[in-house]
Every structure is written in C-alpha cells, then in structure tokens.
C-alpha cells in the first residue's frame, strides 16, 4: 500500500456527525436523558413506543440546536418540521425515527479548524434535530434491547463533501466537538457514543470533475480511529482503481456501509446498498412545526459564549502560542478553561501551556488521567510556573515538584518547595562563585570554543556548574557569573 501514487488521487470526504444533546430529559418525553444506568430504567411510554403515546417536543433541545446553528453561522429556519423515517429494527421503538428531512432547523454554516498549523474552513450542508434509537445487547442465548437511549435528542450535522484528507476530517470533527462542548450542548463523549461520526468517502484522480462512487463508514468512536479508517479506505479504493483500470468505478466500489476494525486496521463491509434505501419520509402528524421568532434567536445570539475558534485566535495572536499548542488546548474545553484559570495567576502563557499540555499531560498519560480528574487546581499549576518565572526554582526542580504534585494532588507547590531543603534555590553568588571557577579551570577547551562563537560550549559550561549545585543554582546567576568570568579571561 505504501507504494500507492497517493499524490495523483484526491479523496472526497463528507462527515455526518451525530451529537447527543445533554438535555435533562429526552427529545419527546420527560424520561431522563442519562447514560450508564440499569437497562430500561430511564424510559417512558413514549420512548418504548407504546400505542397511544404521543411525542411532545423538548424546547431545551431546540435551544441547544439553535445555539449550534448560531455558533457556525447557519441559516436558522424560523419554521421547520419533523418527518417520520420508517425502518424496522428492534432498537427503534416505533419502527420509525422522528427526524427533520424536508425542512431542517439549520441550513449551511462554516466550521473553522486548524489543520497542521493551517487554518481551514469547512462547509456544513445542514443540521437537524432527531431522536436516538435504543441499543441492542447480545447475550449467549438471546438478545435484549435497552431503551434508555431511545428518544435521546440528537443533532445530525452533515458536512459538504469538502474534506480531502484524513487529517482534515479529524480536524473538522474535533472542531465540531469543541463547539458543542463550549456551548454546553453535549458532553461530546465519543466512547459513550455522545458523539458519533459516519464518513462518506470516495477518491478520484486529481483533476477529474465528477464524483466516483462512495461508501460509508459508520460509528468510529475516536478521532484516531476516524483518521485511520479513512486512511485505510482511501488506500483500498486507490488500489482497486489502479489494479483494475479497465473496470467501471461502480463495479469496483459498489455503495455499501462499512465499519472500522481496529484490530485488523481495515474497513469491513457490513451491508451492501442494493438500491437506495426507501425510508418513506413524510411529515410527522403528531408534532406541530418548530416556530421560532427573530427575538428568540437574537437573545440566544447575544448570550453565546466565547467559541473555540475565537479562543484559538486569541491564543495565537494575543498570547503568542503556537497553532499546535493553541489547538491542543482549545479542543478540550475543560483543559482550555483550566488554562484560562491559571492565566489569572501566571502571565507567561507559553510556559503555562507547555506545563499543561506537555509536562503534566506526559506525567498523567500513563495513569490515563487528566489534570482535572486528578484534582490539581489551576492555581497550583500557575504558582509552580510563576516560581520558575521569578527564579525561585529552576526548571529542573520544578519537574521534581511537578512529580510530587501528581503524586499528592492538592499539595501547594510553594509548600512542597518550602518543606524540602533540596528544592531551595541557591541564588547567592558567594556559594556559586567557587563552583564556577572550578568548572572554568577544568574546561579550558570549552572556553576557547565559546570565544570562537560556539554556543554549545557555553551551554556545556552552564550545565556543568548546575550539576555541581545539583540543579539548585539559579540559572540566571550562573549565566551572569560565567559570562563575567570568561570575558575577564
């Protein structure tokens, strides 16, 4: 696969993202909208499709969907309708889904995302409200259905086929997730299925106008899998075209639904689409249209929170973070909020960002935890960075302090430093000077090198002094002393 002439082909990708809204109750009933409870406990006569039960629309779901539309600049239809989408499956309690087909709530919109340091915008085709299905559970001798999820409110966000690489797809999806997190419209938890992504993929030789047949990959539950699945599928399609130049595209890539198998790292065919599915959409007679007023929309617009991309721009232009660092922060709202809190105490944004996204993230990664769930308050992290800033501790000591903060979360870094004499910085010139002299005496060659302009040599000298102080000396003091003494020689 590695030898494929990738650069001669253009992937065309569209994503359908289902976002489960974090409303208190379900879309059409008062049953709790909650994940993880005992099967069939969060249900009502509506979400089990009892005869005689009727749907009543949850206004909170509409509000969250409209907020999403405002966040991405969709056209918000003042009148939109629900339709019935018919298909038989045990997790569908009425054997039809209530969705918006003809006349959706949201039309169009743009999502801005950072793709490898480049800002790109992606076009949304439409977004609509619909209800979720239950979940089938297979046991050894039977299958059961859990309707706890049935009727949970979803917005389905359909992109244009404007995505041309796995990386772009992941960046777009992450940006959508970040938006719903910032709006507090969803918990965006992919493992629990609060955010589910289906990808439609085709490839074509660069320059070809029309679209070739596409397939759909369902339900990839992480961004990594999303990227890997799309990557694998693109390769599969290109290989098929290259190895069978004489055959028609539709024969090679017949429409079908695939899933991603993380073990074999391949896309696996679930079912062929023999002919277009006939869902027999028609207007849902049990519900009246969603009718919105301009003043309602204006009010929601005026109360929109800061959105991830606004934050991204602020981080890059005002705080001077790299694009990579900024997008790492903003894609997890809680991490970004953590950063904001820390920023109130310590103004060195780049250093703060580094300690959050590299130092602590690295320490916590093996534990599978984050700063937030381990319980290190932003103020503690900020104080740690601030101590480095003020030359109270060296970077090296700071790393040890960080280790202790991870080991006993909630410990104030100032207290950790105070309690450990080894962490007290050595700032007085009197105690450092002899060590500087010793290092200079032992390394005449380095001095010569430095004088010829080799900065590495100076760094070596600094390092040697630090070693002798066991990392406790203030690097600034050591620097100054060394320069002074070398210039005197």
């Amino acid at each position, binding site marked *: 696969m590695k030898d494929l002439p990738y650069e001669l082909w253009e992937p065309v990708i569209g994503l359908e993202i289902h976002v489960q809204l974090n409303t208190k109750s379900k879309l059409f009933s008062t049953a709790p909208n909650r994940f993880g409870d005992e099967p069939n406990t969060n249900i009502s*006569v509506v979400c*089990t*499709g*009892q*005869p*005689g*039960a*009727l*749907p*009543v*629309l949850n206004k909170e779901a509409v509000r969250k969907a409209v907020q999403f539309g405002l966040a991405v600049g969709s056209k918000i239809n003042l009148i939109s309708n629900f339709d*019935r989408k*018919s298909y*038989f499956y*045990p997790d569908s*309690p*009425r*054997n*039809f889904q209530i969705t918006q087909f003809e006349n959706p709530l949201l039309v169009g919109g743009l999502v801005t995302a950072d793709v490898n340091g480049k800002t790109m915008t992606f076009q949304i085709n439409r977004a609509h409200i619909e209800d979720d299905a239950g979940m089938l559970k297979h046991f050894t001798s039977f299958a059961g*259905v859990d309707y706890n999820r049935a009727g949970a409110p979803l917005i389905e966000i359909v992109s244009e086929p404007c995505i041309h690489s796995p990386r772009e797809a992941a960046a777009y999806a992450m940006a959508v997730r970040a938006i719903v997190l910032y709006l507090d419209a969803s918990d965006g938890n992919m493992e629990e299925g609060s955010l589910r992504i289906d990808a439609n993929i085709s490839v074509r030789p660069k320059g070809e106008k029309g679209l070739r047949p596409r397939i759909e990959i369902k339900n990839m539950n992480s961004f990594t899998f999303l990227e890997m699945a799309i990557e694998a599928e693109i390769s599969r399609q290109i290989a098929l075209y290259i190895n069978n130049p004489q055959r028609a595209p539709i024969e090679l890539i017949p429409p079908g639904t695939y899933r991603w198998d993380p073990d074999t790292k391949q896309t696996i065919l679930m079912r062929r689409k023999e002919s*277009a599915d*006939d869902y*027999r*959409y*028609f207007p849902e*007679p*049990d*519900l*009246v249209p969603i009718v919105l007023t301009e003043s309602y929309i204006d009010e929601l617009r005026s109360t929109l929170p800061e959105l991830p991309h606004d934050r991204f721009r602020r981080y890059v232009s005002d705080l001077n973070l790299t694009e990579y660092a900024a997008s790492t922060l903003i894609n997890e709202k809680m991490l970004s909020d953590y950063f904001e809190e820390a920023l109130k105490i310590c103004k060195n944004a780049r250093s703060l960002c580094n300690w959050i996204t590299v130092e602590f993230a690295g320490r916590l990664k093996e534990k599978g935890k984050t700063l937030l769930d381990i319980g290190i308050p932003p103020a503690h992290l900020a104080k740690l960075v601030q101590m480095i800033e003020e030359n109270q501790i060296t970077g090296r000591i700071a790393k040890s302090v960080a280790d202790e903060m991870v080991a006993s979360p909630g410990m104030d870094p100032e207290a950790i430093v105070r309690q450990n004499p080894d962490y007290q910085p050595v700032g007085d010139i009197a105690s450092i000077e002899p060590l500087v002299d010793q290092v200079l005496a032992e390394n005449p060659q380095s001095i010569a090198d430095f004088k010829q302009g080799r900065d590495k040599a100076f760094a070596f000298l600094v390092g040697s002094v630090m070693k002798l102080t066991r990392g406790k000396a203030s690097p600034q003091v050591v620097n100054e002393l060394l320069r002074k003494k070398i210039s005197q020689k």
Partner: protein
Amino acid sequence: MKPFHLCSAIELRDAFLKGEASAVQIAEHFILRIEKHNKEIGAFLSVLGPRALLKAEALDKKRAHNKPLGKMAAIPVAIKDNMHIQGEITTCGSKFLKNYKAPFEATAVRLLEEEDALLIGKTNLDEFAMGSTNENSAYFPAHNPWNLKCVPGGSSGGSAAAVAARLALIATGSDTGGSIRQPAGFCGVVGFKPTYGRVSRYGLVAFGSSLDQIGPLSATVADAALSMEVMGRHCPHDATSLDLPGESYTFPKNLDEIKIGVPWSFLENLKPDVRDNFNHSLDTLKSLGAKVIHIDLDILKYTVAVYYILATAEASTNLARFDGIRYGVRSRNAKTLENIYEYSRKEGFGPEVKRRIMLGTYVLSAGYQDAYYKKAQKVRTLMLDAFEKAFSDCDAVALPIAPSGAFEAGSIHDPLEIYLQDIFTIPANLAGLPAVSVPSGYDSRGMPLGLQIIGPQMCDVPVLQYAHAYEQASRHMQIPPSYIGSSK
C-alpha cells in the same frame, strides 16, 4: 322514577345527585343489561363490572358525606376499546393486542373518571378502527339494535350499539373518517366529532394521527355537550391539542339568522329515501328560522380518494410499532428477527388492516409518493380552502351522514364500496372541522338515518347548538323497541 336506562345521562346524574337513585343501583342496573343483551348485540369486548361497582360505592359514600361530586357523577360510560384505561386491556379489536394491558390512562378517560363517570366497559370496534361496519373486529361483530341482522356501522359500532340499546348512556368513540358519526347515524343516536385538537389524543391508539379525534356518542345532544365540557380540555401530552380553555354549552331555542349551506352538486346521486329524509331535515331547520343556501364544495368529490391515501399512509407508520418485540402477541413460530416481524404481523392483523398498511406503504414509497401522498396533501389543502370559502357564506354545512341507512351484515364485499360509505363524513376529518350526527328519522326499511351538521373550526358549541335545536324540533330520538323494557 322511570327505569334508569330510559333516562338521559343528565337526568340520571341529577336523579343520583338528588338521592333518587344510588350509584350502586345504577351500576348494577347497567351491568345487568349488558349481561342480558351483549351476547346478541356484541357491543362490549369487556365489561368492567367490579371496577364500576367499586367506583359506584365510592360515589355513594361521597354523596352520603356531602362531598362534591363530578359532572358525570354515576353516569354509566362505555369506552371504545382503542382508548386506554390504565391497568385494563386495550385490544383495539385486534388479536395482536389481546394481552395488552394499558400502562397509562388516556387523557379523555382520565377526565371522565375525574368527573365521576362509571366506566362500565370497553366497546367493540373494527380492528384498529379500520372499517365502517364493525365486521372487521377480530373478536366478533357488533350488531345493530334496530335490526340485529344489520351492521351498527363503524368503526365505533360497539359504542353506537351500546348507547342505542341503552347498555350505557354515553360512550366514547374515535372518528378518523366518520367512525363516530356514521355508526351514530346507523344506530339512531347522537355522535359528535369535535374540532381536531379539541379532545386530547393521548392514550388513543392512533390510526390516522392528523385525522383522529375522540368524541362522545349519546342519547341526546345535551349529553354529548356535557361530555364535551368534560373531555374538551387542553392536554400537555398531545402536541396537537388546542391550547384553549374548556367550553360550556347553552342551548338557544331557535336558529334565527343562521345560514345553513348545502353543497347540492355533491348530493346528486342520493337514494330517494335518504334524499327525502334530508330534505325533511332541511325543512325542520328552516322552520326554526334558519336560511338554507347552496354552496360550492365540488372538490369534495375527491374526498374518498384523498382520505384513503392520507389515512393509510399515516396508519402504515402508526401500526409499524406492532412488531412483536415489546408487547402484543409474538408469533410462537418465529425463530429469527425477520420471523418475529413477519409472522407476528401476519398472525396478529386481520385482512383489512393488512390491506391498509400495504396501501399506505405503497403511497409513501419512493417513486409513488409524489403521485399519491403529496398530491393528496395538496388536495387536502384545497379542501380546507373550499370550506373556508363556504363558511364565509354560511354558518354551517348540512349533509346526510351516509349514502344509506344501516345495511345487512355481509351484504357488501367490495372494499371500495365500503369505503364509499364514508363519503359524507370524511370531509370534516380532512378539514379538522366539528361535525355532529343527529337522528333524523328512518329509511324505507325502518332503519335510523342521521343528519350531519358541520361547522367551521373551533365552532364546536354552535354546531351542537344547531343540533340541539333540530333535535328538540324533530324528536326522532327513540329507543329500539326490544330494548325499552327493563331487564329485571
């Protein structure tokens, strides 16, 4: 006092309130009548004897303690068996739901019960309310108390027969294309379909959701009005429920200044006895001061075609939930998921239900939807416009209830001919209008006929006022002779 079953519902309630009869006596009287007559009439699918007696005892206690009593106090009320009484079986006249215990109470039923009605039984119907003769009940057909060989009409045939034979004084019905009014007409009782949205559909097993409406069948217009005062309430569980306050009914004596429109061109092929009866009814209205004018509703000739597209389309999805997975009867022969769907529905549904599901599925299918479903929706909109225009010239529209009186069971086999039975009742459903059927005399065979009065949307009160004036002037309300006598 006169036998309980010869009273109107209001008379009986007042007798109870005055202490002339106890609720237990009333309940026992009607339970006994049902026991005696239901075998031949087939009006009830289930009798709620113990439940009614329990309620009656409670009412007698309430009265003894001078506690306030509801508007329906001690009135024996029958519930069509497609509406839920919590904890009781709702069969919908189908084998599929023979074991289905309702997990919640229909709003209309709850309101009746809160006003102290005695819920006495569940009435027979065409399976899932699909039919005009009650012959489509999966259990047994109901019969017309005026002539047991004749059908009672449908789909609320059991409710109409129950009231006609005075096995209950009020019964609920549901009306999708005439299912309250046509059986009311066939059985010589009053039947009222309110404005769409007036009575909550919550707890009514849906047939055609945009057409279904619950309403009362009763011996008198005043009893129907009383039922509407109780059931006609906004309900938060039904998104299509009208958000309006409940209405109260008063009855003026005459119809001065009232204009009644008749779409004569729509009535060209009426049978002579039905035409004579209809003309006679119009004369009565005129004698009350009403003016009868001609109106143009030619578009109504598409009524049956439009209805059997829209109603079946909605029904095909409404009935999709009956799959044998969660409730109802699952086929014992099913081995796979596909089997469960296929066999459960094959064994659980009768032929008329299957026919309508297939028809509805077809008209919604890709490639056919534009020609059928969408076109029918357009015609429905034109009908609404036509009615609106008509009502700018008149206060109400008068029509017969059906092309004929009740016919003999088994005499019509062609489904299309049966469908045409609904030609005069469907328009009110398509346009969401309030419409009443009030007894207007008899055909040449002595079977009851009904006059239909249709009003503009929300004009439920005026429609029943006109019907009341007509009823008082014409006095066609009678009890079939064989059911006048007391069962004791």
